[in-house]
């Protein structure tokens, strides 16, 4: 997994690749949390623009339950509407719908 901020510094995008099985997802949870904590620690102004988190799942070939849980917990940690999933393939879109997460999929 890679991550990067956009130019504004308020959107943190995580890029996922390959098979996201339980083994691979376990360390991701901590890494995502650390990145989000680091952003909050950086804030300087009293009312910072809320952090937007994006999961880019373009090259994902398998999703496990753990990944769905990470999505849910990340959505809860960010403010409403600030979590999105992008670049979902048709297969991934179908899986996210079945898992009840299609509200996070960014409009195509």
């Amino acid at each position: 997994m890679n991550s990067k901020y956009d130019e504004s510094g308020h959107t943190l995008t995580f890029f996922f690749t390959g098979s996201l099985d339980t083994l691979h997802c376990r360390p991701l949870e901590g890494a995502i949390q650390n990145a989000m904590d680091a952003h909050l620690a950086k804030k300087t102004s009293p009312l910072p623009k809320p952090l937007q988190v994006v999961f880019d799942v373009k090259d994902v070939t398998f999703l496990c339950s753990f990944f769905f849980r990470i999505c849910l917990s990340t959505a809860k940690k960010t403010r409403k509407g600030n979590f999105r999933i992008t670049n979902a393939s048709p297969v991934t879109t179908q899986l996210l719908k079945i898992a009840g997460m299609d509200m996070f999929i960014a409009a195509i």
Partner: protein
Amino acid sequence: MASFTEKQAAYGEGAALTKEFFRAKAVMEKAAFASAVFRQLTQEQVDRIVEGVYKAAFNHRVTLAKMAQEETGMGVWQHKTLQHVFATQILHESIKCEKTVGIISRDDNAGLTEIAEPIGPVLAAVTDINPTASILFTALICLKTRNPLIISPHPRALKACAEAARICYQAALEADAPEDCIQCLDESSRQLDHALMTHPALALILVMGRTDLVETSRSSGTPAILSLPGHVPVLIDVSADIPFAVKSIMASKTFDNGMLLAGEQAIVVESQAADAVIQEFKKQHGHVLPPQDLKKVEARLFNSEDGALQPEARGQSAEKLAIFAGITVPAGTRLLLAPQDQPGKGRPLSGVKLAPLIGLYVRKDLDSAISLCLELNSQGSLGRVAGIYANNDKVVATFAQLLNVGYLMVNTPVATGIAGGVFTRLQPAFILSSSPDGKHVVHESISIRQLLAIKRICRRRCNERWQAISGDNYLDERLSADDVAAIYNRNY
């Protein structure tokens, strides 16, 4: 019309936000995750999971049988063990080579391709009659079809259900099944069942012997398959081999102390054969209750209000039933036969009895015997099964035509034969669709086929006869149906 996502978002609107509501939401969330992960598995992965679960469940067949018998206080553990063998080995043999993932059939000539998809999370409301066998069976058919299973246990079998589910789930995980592919609720609550049944993500409800959940499931808006105790009449025709018929009925009705949902409930016999039938039952350790004992049995074993068999009497041996009723029966009695004139309200012995107790009716001829079977068939759940012992095909055909049943068992034990795979070539199944009013979508035994959403790809294959006929023929009202059919079917 609201979309699925909107329905999910609206779930709970207007409902009391009780702990059961949040519990159901959490259970369904896990099931939805499992459903999504399951869809990504291949046939090989699925078959490995099913094999692992079958072996683990089979290896615990005796332990689970003893647990179920001990906790519910009903039935015979040796017979429950055989039910476990049926629900694991016999079932596995019948489904192991079946395709349930992706393309399952392809006919290039007809241009038809069938693709199997899972239907989604399944809720199984399990009875205390055969709780562990029901769980092993539903777990295997759900796993084979990649559907997550949620088990709602019966309050009288919580421990046995939890253990059966644990064994299956652990084996499934060891074979790399998705997390939460099997969930067993740790309590039995009507509110929780209702909250689960009305959840938009639930695909199917299997009500297995739970008459208390019929209305809840039917009003939930989720498709439900009911499998309820039914009134099963068995006709012994004069052409039957009487010793064989009696032996078969004895074995079937006494199996697990008469606890099978599709068990025989009434024997109907023509007067010409009545003496021979009664003598044969006596020979094979059946006891025909005399009139004075019938009253005691009715008064002590049945609820005076609704006429149902008392819970303490369900699944007890014939000798124990006699003790409860305060009557004396010969040592070694295996089945109690209760002679009845007519079925109906106020006659509890003519109703459904999940115990080694069966109604016995004598009719003067075949017509009145069949008429009685029709009447009996409409008591209890309809559309299940009936039996006939006869060596006369005309009698069998008449009987089959008149009775409203899904299956008619001929010269075959009903309770143990209907499950398939042992006495018949029916596909092994533990769930037989039935309902209190005879209304149901599927009129058959439930196995993997009913848990699949089959997509059909239909390629263009034109009907030559349709193309050959001129459309003007249809527009000309002077041409009759026969005229058009002659042109349509012309074979130049």
